[in-house]
């Protein structure tokens, strides 16, 4: 087999796999423009489902809940996780190992187990009379559940960064008269902020996307994934297709923008490096 053939084979294989991955999404989006309510007959083009989606009270309130829940739980998880990382960093190796292993539990455990174990806790609390007559289930339990599965991701994102930091910078700040609090906010936090930000973004996406853990802990509240689930259980309306088309575009947009920003920063850095190198040469020449 010559090189040309094997390259052609590679291309074909990749196209087939990507076709497999994108075919269902393409179908979903195509049917969002279908005039007919059927999932199989395509009768004509319409934007009507997008319009009716915008008036669908259930979906809009679910979306609102998902966004607020994601923001609040991610902020709290990021704060809790960052503080935890700093605290864990100054512990003995043995306690670090124990805490990290326990923190791994929600990451590696099947989501359904994290979901039901939290649910059992809240059921038990309800039996003990905590949370009043209606029990705890609702906003509180959703928030607790989301923070719980998000914090480990913060820790595992920020900890490597903290280990890489130069400890003498913090000591220098203290030597130069900073109080520990100032040194924390002016020296430590700015250095950690890229890792903290990316941890925050990871939390947001996990929180918005989570279905299984929320499903067991939502009570009667509906986050967006739960609303989608209940829509797929009933007679389905093409509004769900319109919704997936919009979500796909939003995600694509976010990825493209963040990519463009990344490569912009990269080019800027490269340019700066080249400038520095050129400057260095000039100095040497002089």
């Amino acid at each position, binding site marked *: 087999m010559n090189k040309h053939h094997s390259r052609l084979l590679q291309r074909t294989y990749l196209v087939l796999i990507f076709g497999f991955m994108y075919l269902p999404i393409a179908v979903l989006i195509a049917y969002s423009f279908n005039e007919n309510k059927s999932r199989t007959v395509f009768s004509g083009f319409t934007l009507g489902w997008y319009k009716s989606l915008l008036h669908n009270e259930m979906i809009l309130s679910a979306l609102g809940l998902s966004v607020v829940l994601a923001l609040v739980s991610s902020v709290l998880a990021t704060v809790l996780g960052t503080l935890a990382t700093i605290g864990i960093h100054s512990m003995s190796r043995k306690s670090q190992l124990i805490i990290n292993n326990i923190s791994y539990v929600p990451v590696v455990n099947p989501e359904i187990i994290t979901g039901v174990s939290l649910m059992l806790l809240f059921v038990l609390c309800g039996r003990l009379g905590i949370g009043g007559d209606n029990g705890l289930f609702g906003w509180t339990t959703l928030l607790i559940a989301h923070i719980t599965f998000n914090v480990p991701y913060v820790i595992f994102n920020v900890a490597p960064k903290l280990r890489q930091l130069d400890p003498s910078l913090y000591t220098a700040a203290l030597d130069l008269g900073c109080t520990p609090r100032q040194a924390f906010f002016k020296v430590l936090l700015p250095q950690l902020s890229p890792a903290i930000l990316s941890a925050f973004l990871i939390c947001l996406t996990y929180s918005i996307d989570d279905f299984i853990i929320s499903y067991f802990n939502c009570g009667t509240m509906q986050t967006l994934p739960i609303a989608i689930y209940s829509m797929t259980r009933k007679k389905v309306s093409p509004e769900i297709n319109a919704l*997936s088309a919009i*979500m796909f575009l939003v995600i694509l947009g976010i990825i493209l923008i963040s990519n463009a920003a990344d490569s912009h920063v990269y080019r800027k850095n490269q340019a700066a490096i080249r400038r520095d190198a050129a400057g260095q040469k000039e100095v040497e020449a002089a």
Partner: protein
Amino acid sequence: MLRTKNSRWAAAPYLVWMAVFIVVPLLIVIWYALTNSDGAFTLENLTSIGRYTSVFGRSLLLAAEATVICLVLAFPVGYFLSRLRSNKQHIMLMLVMLPMWMNFLLRTYAWMTLLEKNGLINKFLGLFGIGPFNMINTSGAVVLGMVYNYLPYMILPLYTAMTKIDDSIIEAAQDLGSNPGQILGRVLIPLSKPGIATGITMVFVPSVSTFIISRMLGGGANLLIGDLIELQFLGNSYNLNLGSAMSLVLMVIVLLCMSFTSTFDEEEMEGVM
């Protein structure tokens, strides 16, 4: 420096959180699994799981099938991607991850449209006079759903492992007379073992515990462990004690799977983060 006694207190809120919302819930699961509804100790929950052996067997079998298919499909993808120029790699990686960002309920729902009796695939085949086939509500559809949803989780760690394989190693094997099969068996597979191990856990664990895929694509006849557990907690057969016992067994299965794959490589979790 940072390692002062005082800064340890920063972890205190999390430690309390971890104890209350990670450790205690798991202990409650164990406690419920070992008691009856009156709170008395019993092994009945665990022994009555014996009635559901077929469901557990089916879950393990379908999840194993999905894992193997994912591995076979993803291995060439990981290899081809790792050999591309780096700017192309970046774009392709984005393409692999993009479907993961779509809500997985929507993606699975899309397969319902495709696989139905008068769905798109049957319509398409009908143009050539083939079919219609009965595809939805079969165990094959469940496996397809698992493969589709978790394929990126296999591609990414494989790709990460394979980017570390230098071209010159493959070329050296070629120069020394290896045929493609030998290169695969003696160079590529051994060197991508950490990726394989991570990929297997990341596909097997969610597959064996899913309850949405089986419900949407498998109809009523393809109940999995996840469905059973869900039925005990939120469904018709409300029985928290039995559900906890099932969760406990599922956890043991997952632990066994993970200890099996972690023998491949100690750093298996690195590809995940």
